[in-house]
């Protein structure tokens, strides 16, 4: 295919994700507020927040090093690249082959590594507490995520997300036990990795319970804006991963006609909105867990994913 068509399509994917991410977060906040009988901020509030933060001075602690100042861009870049590699509205984009599902997970690992280091840089107790807990959660969530990718890859016979999505969108795969387990695990991992209730609370600064917010406690101004944008992108990344693996319907898999692309784009937005509405509903029905209950919660995802992989190894039927 001609580069003149492919390149814009790839660019559309990455800019579109970046543009829509704050809106999706806005929807989750609005729905959550409504469920709690509040009016909630307007949907565009996340955009305004980022705009506001961008134009403020960045206040940097005296003893912060270059790691602290570069980390936000590193986190953002790794998350953005990972998000750009997940098929959203169409498969087989220009660079879709440059990294597979395992690489996407590892890229998120790179972002997490930078974030945890940034939390430790200034040398405050809160930064350390956040980094330490983040790595503890990750030490269970990342293997769970890898096992999910194994389960899916064993069914599809490939780790390429584009190929998986094209295969699954045909519906030939059908309903499978291992896929169900993988979906369950992916939801749990998504909740843990995006610092949502019951693992973490994105809306609180109650020190002893926070993880993600503790790591970025020292950040302000444009640095904070970039980290917030990365966190929003990560949420959209997980949504599009769920959509791509478990509901790849409507994607432009074959010939990239204008109609197919528009259908793909519209269905993708719809999927995102549905997930953005479901997430706060789930969140408002549970309470935040104690820190040392997390291992059981995230570990259940690990166990479910491991079971899914195991079933695939033992029999082709599952």
């Amino acid at each position: 295919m001609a580069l003149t068509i492919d390149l814009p399509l790839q660019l559309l994917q990455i800019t579109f994700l970046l543009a829509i991410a704050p809106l999706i977060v806005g929807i989750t906040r609005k729905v959550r507020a409504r469920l709690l009988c509040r009016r909630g901020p307007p949907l565009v509030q996340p955009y305004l927040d980022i705009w506001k933060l961008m134009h403020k001075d960045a206040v940097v602690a005296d003893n912060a090093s270059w790691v602290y100042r570069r980390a936000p861009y590193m986190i953002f870049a790794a998350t953005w690249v990972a998000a750009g590699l997940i098929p959203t509205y169409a498969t087989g984009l220009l660079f879709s082959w440059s990294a597979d599902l395992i690489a996407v997970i590892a890229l998120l690992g790179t972002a997490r590594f930078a974030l945890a280091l940034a939390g430790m840089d200034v040398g405050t107790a809160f930064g350390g507490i956040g980094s330490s807990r983040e790595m503890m959660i990750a030490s269970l969530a990342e293997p769970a995520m890898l096992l999910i990718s194994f389960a899916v890859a064993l069914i599809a016979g490939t780790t390429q997300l584009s190929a998986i999505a094209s295969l699954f969108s045909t519906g030939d795969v059908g309903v499978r036990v291992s896929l169900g387990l993988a979906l369950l695990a992916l939801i749990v991992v998504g909740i843990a990795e995006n610092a949502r209730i019951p693992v973490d609370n994105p809306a609180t600064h109650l020190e002893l319970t926070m993880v993600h917010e503790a790591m970025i406690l020292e950040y302000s101004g444009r640095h904070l804006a970039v980290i917030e944008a990365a966190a929003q992108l990560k949420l959209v990344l997980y949504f599009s991963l769920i959509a791509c693996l478990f509901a790849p319907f409507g994607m432009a898999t074959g010939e990239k006609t204008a109609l197919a692309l528009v259908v793909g784009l519209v269905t993708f937005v719809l999927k995102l909105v549905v997930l953005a509405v479901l997430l706060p509903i789930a969140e408002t029905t549970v309470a935040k867990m104690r820190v040392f209950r997390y291992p059981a919660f995230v570990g259940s995802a690990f166990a479910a994913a491991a079971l899914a992989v195991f079933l695939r190894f033992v029999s082709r039927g599952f």
Partner: protein
Amino acid sequence: MPEVTIGLWCIAGFLGTGVLGAVLGRHAVATPLVYGTAMCVALAAVLLALEVLLGAAPATSLVLPIGLPGLGAHFRLDALAAFFMLVVNFGAAAASLYAIGYGRHEKAPLRVLPFYGPFLAAMNLVLLAADAFTFLLSWELMSLASWTLVVSNHRQSANIRAGFIYLLMASFGTLCLLLTFGLLSNATGDFTFERMRAAGSSETVVAMATLLALVGAGSKAGLVPLHVWLPLAHPAAPSHVSALLSGVMTKVGVYGFMRIVFDVIGDLSPWAGLVVVVAGGATAVLGVLYAVMQRDLKRLLAYSTVENIGIIFIGLGLALAFRADGQAPAAALALTAALFHVLNHSVFKSLLFFGAGAVQSATGERDMEKLGGLVHRMPQTAVVFLIGCMSIAALPPLNGFVSEWMTFQAILLSPQLTPWGLKFAVPAVGAMLALAAALAGACFVKAFGVVFLSRPRSPAAANATEVDGFALTAMLMLAWVCVVAGTLPGFVIDALHPVTRALAGSALPTQAGVPWLSIVPIAESRSSYNGLIVFFFLIASGSMTALVVHRLASRRTRKSPAWDCGYPLDSPITQYSSASFAMPIRRVFGTVVFGVHETVDMPRPGEMRAGHYRLRVRDPAWRYLYGPLARLVLRSAHKLNRLQFLTIRRYLALVFAALIVLMLVVAAWR
């Protein structure tokens, strides 16, 4: 001159540097001279290895009329030996360069310099040996030479103990290898590898020999539970030697296993693969779990070596299983992954040990609880150490990720395996590998975060200075290799073709012709990865974002005291430390795996005494295996002690009884 002869000349060169060190040891010129010469010899050996590997030269062999009468000493340089020669000598060259600067801090150079060259020579000799006698002799020489380096700082009693345990484990390992060769040569009584390969053995003998080789070579490489000497001995040596011990000598252990099992034994049942895979999985997870708990930086690195050896053995075990199952392409993938990880680990582990050595020479500390904030005082070391940490944590776009990715791809091929045991074990090992990969991330966030970031925890750390240029150059060179091997992995994979073709009977498709320099281990529809593009995207999107934000929004920065939720605490002990960083992971895994023992003594309100917190983490290998073993030996020695004080009549009776028993045994055997 055939290649193997040049290799032997290199070995002679290494031995010569040892003589040089012994003669000139007291002079100041000795350190740069010995290490400089060793570096040149190592670089020559690297070139030789590259020529054999890339030129796909046929194996050359040589017989020297030394050694056992009638046997001689056989040497052979084939693709496998050449690859490991590359790994060993590249690490040796970097370590020698590093030591030109670092060695100046050595208080007693005569305890290091004369043994450094022989250590390098012995490792190379193991690679070239082509008969059991030469192999074992070089293997022992390697153990002894490295032992002298481990105990070079003999005034610390911990080092003496480390040396003792190392010697014990090394002789146990050699004993196992001796028995392996004994079993394999049983049919012919010939000790050359060539004849052993041709002879073939019965299935039981092969199974026993494989197990013994796994134990013997595994004890050198650091398989759990034979790893106990490794975290004691590796940190005890001077840092450039630590790098060699951890980054390079463990690889010679891997080589020993591969030479015996893949090459000499050859045909195996898939069960051997199962045993190796499971041993590798357990080693990977336990190694990294111990690593997270450590507070001594070099010991943390040594335990992380155990983890990486586990990853390598997972690849090797899968390769064995695939090969036994007749799936040559899959075996080639697993083998390539393992060998690629061998190379990667030797590079980044050397880099990290150099970094730890730099920290130690700058601050005099290895204890992470007394370090911190070194990113300000040692900025260049911090950058290269960070690259090493990211590589070993398997983060894209660096090299550690590529080999781990390939191991994962090999695991994803394993449902094709027919034996049922493997069908059950491999998914579990895959989960273990995933767990190990994630924990390695935590481990190295801790290592870099506690040592280089945060505030200094001691005056020594606050007043550290950057290390010398030689050390920095060596580290920078290794860091470049990490980046290049991570972004252009296709070339490394292609270079491994002769090795996999010889040992797995197949090789991965040639990667050089793949568009955009991606790597495609099996087929494009199955999986592909492009480190270069990922690297480029990361750099481009990161710098573009920074540019846009700085241009279009604000670029003003204000300095201020840390915020810390409004109550910044001055004392650096209020920061998260190494122990507190590891605490959540210790809580999750520790109670089961380590038998962690915490005691908190908190004064009651009104009491004026200090509170106490004690934490004991013990390696379960000591608690469950070596502790009871040592006690058993002591108790039986105590019992047997009475035999020293018998009368002559009783001694004679004892000798007679022993004779009778032996004759009965022989009679029963017949």
